[in-house]
């Protein structure tokens, strides 16, 4: 495309000169190219809208703001998955502090908890996100470096090994909260460290700070199979996440804050998982910490003081 040096063929009274034709082509081409170059933005339209962009910090939301936010989330989920979810903003209960205990004598390493958690908490199927990692450890050592979470035995448990599931330890002194530059993650008074997925900027500092490898990052848009979508959702819990935010175990907020046991406990076939309110002296969790051989908080020497305890029977 070149402008001709010769002007003799110009006919000023013609309906369309060569120049105006070229200019029209250029303008049309330019506009359509601009439109095409903006096309990738269409994929973002599911997530980015002004309402969400202007949303205030979770702790500053008034109840009426929250109603609007929940309506927006329910609409978004329905548009994407075709299921109308029931989203709630559940607050911590008074006089409750959650503690988890896991019986290492009983755990057989069947990984049912891993998959019950994925289904309950709407984790991405591909790429896979799982909150619980089950380590297969040789007897006689508590060194997690010797653990292997990729075991693919035909039958479990294998003789000479024990199995140690690891998930968010809900630390009393959480390093992940300290490093968050925007306060998108914090510890609630019932002991659960939560994440506001609408406030997270995806810097992954918390992932690096966590000594238990408990935090997961959504590198791509999560792919949640529609047939496995759990419509019972909580704002700080299992509502679908978007690309570029962190997530982790939150003790199934949508279940535990209405009095139910977490999903990993319900599915455990050997009853190795125990959960409850440590402030209630009658609870089974109080009994375990009082009577059983509770031997560790994982990596207790680093001072995170987890609310997740491992214990033995005999």
């Amino acid at each position: 495309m070149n402008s001709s040096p010769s002007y003799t063929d110009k006919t000023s009274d013609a309906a369309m000169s060569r120049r105006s034709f070229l200019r029209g082509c250029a303008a049309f081409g330019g506009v359509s190219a601009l439109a095409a170059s903006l096309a990738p933005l269409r994929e973002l339209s599911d997530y980015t809208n002004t309402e969400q962009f202007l949303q205030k910090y979770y702790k500053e939301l008034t109840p009426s703001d929250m109603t609007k936010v929940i309506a927006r989330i329910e609409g978004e989920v329905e548009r994407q998955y075709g299921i109308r979810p029931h989203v709630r903003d559940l607050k911590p209960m008074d006089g409750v502090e959650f503690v988890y205990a896991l019986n290492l004598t009983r755990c057989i390493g069947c990984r049912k908890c891993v998959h019950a958690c994925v289904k309950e908490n709407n984790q991405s199927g591909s790429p896979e996100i799982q909150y619980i990692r089950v380590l297969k450890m040789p007897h006689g050592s508590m060194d997690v470096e010797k653990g292997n979470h990729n075991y693919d035995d035909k039958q479990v448990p294998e003789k000479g090994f024990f199995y140690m599931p690891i998930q968010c330890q809900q630390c009393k002194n959480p390093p992940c909260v300290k490093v968050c530059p925007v306060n998108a993650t914090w510890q609630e008074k019932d002991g659960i460290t939560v994440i506001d997925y609408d406030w997270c900027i995806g810097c992954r500092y918390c992932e690096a700070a966590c000594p238990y490898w408990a935090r997961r990052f959504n590198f791509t848009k999560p792919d949640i199979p529609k047939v496995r979508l759990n419509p019972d959702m909580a704002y700080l819990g299992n509502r679908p996440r978007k690309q570029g935010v962190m997530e982790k175990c939150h003790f199934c907020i949508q279940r535990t804050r209405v009095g139910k046991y977490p999903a990993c406990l319900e599915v455990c076939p050997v009853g190795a998982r125990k959960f409850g309110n440590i402030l209630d002296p009658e609870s089974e969790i109080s009994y375990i910490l009082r009577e059983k051989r509770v031997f560790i908080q994982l990596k207790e020497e680093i001072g995170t003081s987890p609310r997740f305890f491992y214990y033995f029977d005999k």
Partner: protein
Amino acid sequence: MEKSGSSDGIKYGALTNYWLSGLTVGFLGLAIFFVISSKKKSVSQPNIALVDKKFLETTPWRQTYADLVKAKEDLSDYDCYGCHDKAKPPLIRFDSNQKLIIPKEHANIQMAHGAHERNNLCYNCHNEQNLLTLQVRDERNIKFDNIPQLCGSCHGPTYRDWDAGAHGRTSGYWDRSLGNSTRLSCANCHNPHAPHIPTREPAPGPHSLHQDSTHHERAEALH
């Protein structure tokens, strides 16, 4: 400079035309690039199959007598006196190695209770005077739907833990003021004749984002 060639009277220089044509080519190139790059995914995502539904089951492994009664199941297996004589307690026979001989009518029973399977005397738990009940050593009779009492007569610490909720499965509500919880009975998990929990098939392990064949070999090597 040149004279205007169009009716709207705006004048264009040769330089402007070069710019316009250059920009057009540039934008078209960008458009083609974006269209192509939006078609292919930036991260190759492995196709991970949904986990088998059996791994999501929360139902107990076994059914107890009480469960069978509740579900109105066939209870003919528990009709002892359909075959046995009430006045004559069945005899227990052992082979030359002191191993229990299980009669062919009860061939479905596999005995493996206690260290070296030494708890193999049927009447340690069954009541020979009334086969429809169980008995503990202090001669208390116990019904089939109350097995924890029987098991607890030997396994005291385990019974104490179970009673406090520390042993065995509990499900439902941790906050008893908001809802009910159910605690499974001994025989929901343990086979009374062979109480050791058998080995099981584990659910599939994690898939990493960039899984290749070497990853699998490394996992094998760690065993």
